[in-house]
């Protein structure tokens, strides 16, 4: 068992069109490092030079924005669902 990471359309070129990826990691930060190992290049799309999540990237664990949790230190457990989603316009 591991966390399920949902890959958004703009990043699927890097994951050979895989939409759902299983990652074993203790935190969101570790999950991104793990993703980078399997899909080189994906990390720089998600985090900036300073290591922070990019301004227009939203990351959710079980439907909660990680900015309301512990950002990159947000812990992950078996069966958690992680979504990576671009910011979108108003309505």
């Amino acid at each position, binding site marked *: 068992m591991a966390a399920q990471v949902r890959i958004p359309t*703009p990043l699927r070129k890097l994951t050979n069109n895989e939409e759902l990826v299983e990652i074993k990691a203790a935190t969101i930060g570790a999950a991104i490092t793990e993703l980078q190992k399997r899909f080189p290049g994906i990390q720089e*799309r998600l985090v900036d030079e300073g290591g922070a999540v990019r301004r227009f990237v939203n990351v959710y664990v079980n439907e909660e924005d990680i*900015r309301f949790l512990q950002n990159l230190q947000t812990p992950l457990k078996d069966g958690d669902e992680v979504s990576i989603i671009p*910011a979108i*316009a*108003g*309505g």
Partner: protein
Amino acid sequence: MEKQDGFMKALKCRECGREYPLTATHVCEFDFGPLEVVYDYDRIKRSLTRHAIESRPHTMWRYRELLPIANEPTVGTQVGFTPLIKADRLAERLGIRECWIKNDAVNYPTLSFKDRVVSVALSRAHELGFKIVACASTGNLANSVAANAAAAGLKSYVFIPADLEQGKIVNSLVYGANVIGIHGHYDEVNRLCAEIAGKYGWAFVNVNMRPYYAEGSKSLGFEVVEQLGWRVPQHTVIPMASGSLLTKIHKSYQELGKLGLVHHTDWKIHGAQATGCSPISVAQKAGLDFFKPVKPNTIAKSLAIGTPADGFYALRVMKETGGHAEDVSDDEIRDAIKLLAETEGIFAETAGGVTVGVAKKLIASGKIPAEDSVVICVTGNGLKTLDAVNGHCGHPREIKPSLREFEALMQETEKFATHH
């Protein structure tokens, strides 16, 4: 190729500048930055003169060269050119020399500014061959997508928070749209729609059609300038949900300057939020150039976006123009709705209460000087948010159909008036 794309050249990432073809796509693959339409301003300048504009029908499409469709519009051809009202009685109450209301509460066909963005998004969706259109919405957008899709013979899916005002729900259902109520707030609806848009090949007006959709808001700014006699207002007060409208009105003033249609550059753009959902206003007042997401709790549901996608750009526009942000409580929103109604005969929805209430605060604090002129943008109709003011503006007095009862009531009224 040039003919096929109208006056558009490409889509371009606002962050890194990478260019993309003019398809249904909205974020940069490299940094997730939003994509924006790039225009051929040299060609537009040859085509779009004051004379040309003034000779065209009174709709938003009189600025067609600056709107991102390739051919003539096919959806929402009657939208826009709403009244700009010189609001003297309101100006007096607010303590300012001159005040104007841009009244999109009477926009056609669904009584909010969203008809502007939707007519662009659906005309473009039609050009790109889509048969199904969709949106994530706080209500007004759902109404507009539902109505305009119906009129254009397109199938529509609209996703809204399940706890929206009854008026806004019925206003989507009546057009035969598929209305999906989500148990969650708008940011959750938004997240779900981003995932659905990635899976289904629909034209989501504020997801994959966003670069075209958002440009429609510029028409509000073009109209204000033309209606003021080709003058950019000194101050414009604009409601902020995602912050997109504010950035696009600023862009509309810039474009008219770039095309030589106006000649001054010293306008100030001010942003209005509800205190119960004020991530942008809080950041602006603290002097920050980034915001912290919030969980919304306000009667101004159409502005209840806790993670505003254009918040960063809205902050930048206010900073660059020397404008300010402010926010108002639910009670201040209701008071401002009543103030606008009693002084100008305009019934605005809660977002309009937010804008008028914030204008009042900015004038009182001197951030908008009393000797200046201000345009206040009212973007939606009060009939859609009756729940918010019902019970807060009194009740009708009931009598039998008898002249005696009426005269008794009048006497009582007069007594009341002389004692107060």
